[in-house]
């Protein structure tokens, strides 16, 4: 019996085992299948979400910030859309929600990224964080040959290489209507020293188109060149500034920088735009180079006022007058400058820049009226024409200054103020988008001395 039972039992057990295994296998297979399916689905969705998020962040990275008020307005407007469009309401809502979720995710992602690292964009310079600080710089290196040196004060040789200014420009947007601007120049002195000069340092309040307020140190609204070309030589067509608007510390006769408050704005009228700028500042110190950034020696403030018209009928044309008034303090250390001088500068410019043409003309009259009753007048100006042909820009400039030689303010300065009559021809070549090579020849008469100068400059922005 046992002999028969054993094989039967074995068969039964085997069948049971097989059956059980099949059922078990079938059950495990289904659940595994479902688990696998769910896991793959979750992984796939996660991956897809990450991909979309990454793509959005890449696209929008560091591009914008939205004020909470604007968000509220946007939300309100979304509600309006829903009400106005009842047919597609559910579809519209879900789409808007998706976009909002994506946008919020992007915002978080962008913030994380932008707080971590700086961004460099060609043409804009370095930006740290989201519109927090932009840094850009300028530099230039010159080589010159001249056949005569009219100055008896400086024996600088007749052929030389020279480093131009190394100029750092920084801006920061503090809010939608407030920004900060700084321009710091590192100037290489004849003595070998490097002077760090804060050329512009101001906080800007943007009220509306009609009123913008700058407080700090700025370029005075006096003429076209001074407001449009600052220390970055790369931006200007020629190697040097015109003699009449040369910077104070390079022997310029007109004050170019000052510390105070400036109001400016534009009225966009029918037929023409009217720009204005008005500054109240400390004014000059006792000589042409002294800038009163910290205090005002005689408490008498300088006033600058400039108007400019841009008629719509001739696109690219700008013209307008400017005036500057100041009382220059007496110099107690100099017996020849023991009186205050009332200074009034009248200026005017006519400028036409359109497509390939650049035509700049400016003229100034500098009136110095001493308390003693002596009155001195200096006349100066320039006319510059340039025409762009692809990467080349040939140019010509005529500079003229006629000083009153008995004007004690200029006569007692550390610079030579020569009567100037100079013709300059040159060629600017854009070697790359941010590097220009300028070659120029000029023939000048400084007082009665003829001087021929050949110059080569590489000017760049980074």
């Amino acid at each position, binding site marked *: 019996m046992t002999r028969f039972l054993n094989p039967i039992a074995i068969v039964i057990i085997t069948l049971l085992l097989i059956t059980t295994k099949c059922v078990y296998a079938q059950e495990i297979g289904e659940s595994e299948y479902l688990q696998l399916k769910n896991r793959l689905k979750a992984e796939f969705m996660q991956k897809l979400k990450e991909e979309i998020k990454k793509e959005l962040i890449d696209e929008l990275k560091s591009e914008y910030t939205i004020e909470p008020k604007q968000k509220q307005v*946007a939300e309100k407007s979304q509600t309006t859309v829903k009400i106005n469009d009842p047919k597609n309401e559910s579809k519209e809502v879900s789409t808007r929600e998706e976009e909002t979720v994506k946008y919020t995710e992007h915002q978080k992602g962008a913030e994380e990224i932008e707080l971590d690292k700086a961004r460099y964009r060609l043409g804009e310079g370095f930006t740290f964080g989201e519109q927090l600080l932009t840094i850009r710089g300028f530099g230039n290196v010159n080589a010159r040959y001249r056949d005569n040196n009219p100055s008896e004060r400086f024996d600088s040789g007749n052929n030389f290489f020279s480093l131009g200014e190394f100029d750092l420009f920084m801006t920061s947007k503090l809010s939608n209507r407030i920004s900060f601007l700084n321009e710091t120049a590192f100037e290489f002195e004849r003595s070998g020293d490097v002077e760090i000069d804060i050329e512009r340092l101001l906080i800007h309040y943007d009220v509306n188109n009609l009123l913008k307020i700058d407080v700090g140190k700025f370029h005075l609204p006096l003429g076209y060149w001074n407001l449009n070309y600052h220390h970055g030589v790369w931006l200007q067509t020629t190697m040097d500034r015109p003699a009449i608007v040369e910077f104070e510390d390079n022997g310029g006769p007109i004050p170019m920088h000052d510390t105070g408050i400036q109001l400016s704005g534009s009225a966009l009228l029918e037929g023409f735009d009217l720009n204005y700028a008005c500054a109240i500042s400390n004014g000059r110190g006792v000589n042409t180079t002294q800038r009163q950034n910290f205090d005002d020696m005689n408490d008498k403030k300088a006033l600058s006022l400039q108007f400019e018209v841009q008629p719509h009928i001739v696109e690219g044309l700008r013209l307008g007058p400017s005036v500057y008034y100041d009382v220059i303090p007496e110099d107690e250390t100099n017996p020849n400058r023991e009186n205050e001088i009332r200074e009034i500068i009248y200026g005017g410019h006519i400028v036409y820049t359109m497509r390939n043409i650049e035509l700049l003309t400016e003229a100034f009259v500098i009136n110095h009226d001493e308390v003693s009753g002596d009155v001195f007048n200096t006349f100066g100006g320039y006319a510059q024409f340039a025409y762009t042909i692809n990467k080349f820009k040939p140019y010509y400039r005529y500079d003229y200054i006629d000083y009153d030689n008995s004007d004690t303010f200029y006569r007692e300065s550390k610079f030579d103020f020569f009567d100037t009559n100079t013709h300059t021809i040159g060629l600017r070549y854009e070697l790359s988008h941010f590097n220009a090579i300028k070659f120029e020849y000029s023939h000048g008469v400084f007082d009665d001395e003829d001087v021929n100068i050949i110059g080569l400059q590489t000017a760049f922005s980074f």
Partner: protein
Amino acid sequence: MRLILVIVFVPLVIFVTNAYATTAVIVNKTNPVSDISYNELKQILEAKNQYWDNREKITLIFKPVASNETRTLIDKVYKIKYEDFDKYWFWKMYKNEIMEFPKILNSSGTINILVSEMSGAIAFIGVNDVSKRGNIKILKINGKMPDEDGYPFK
């Protein structure tokens, strides 16, 4: 045969639609302006006018300089070389005339979203790329919509 037709006609269609796409001027729907004169638009584009009438700050949004939309604007409004476009804006910043650079975005979709979200934004994209569901509207220029004769950015 079908392959040849695809090879020939698809690039042709893409070329034609891109090359001759009209540039639409889009703003947020909450913006009270619906019709703008060409001169007013030019003042906005040149950043002479930086505020809407409701005192909202204007945010300019462009596609990259290589795009047809921006090149149309450069040709017709700025009248400068394409490669000088970034220099133009940098110079404005250097002169302290603007506080930030205009936003340059590659994707029309992103521009649509951005204009939908920013009440002061104004953007310039191909008329076919304007989203129909976003919180945006197309501005008329001198009373003309992009599909009408006399529209300046065709």
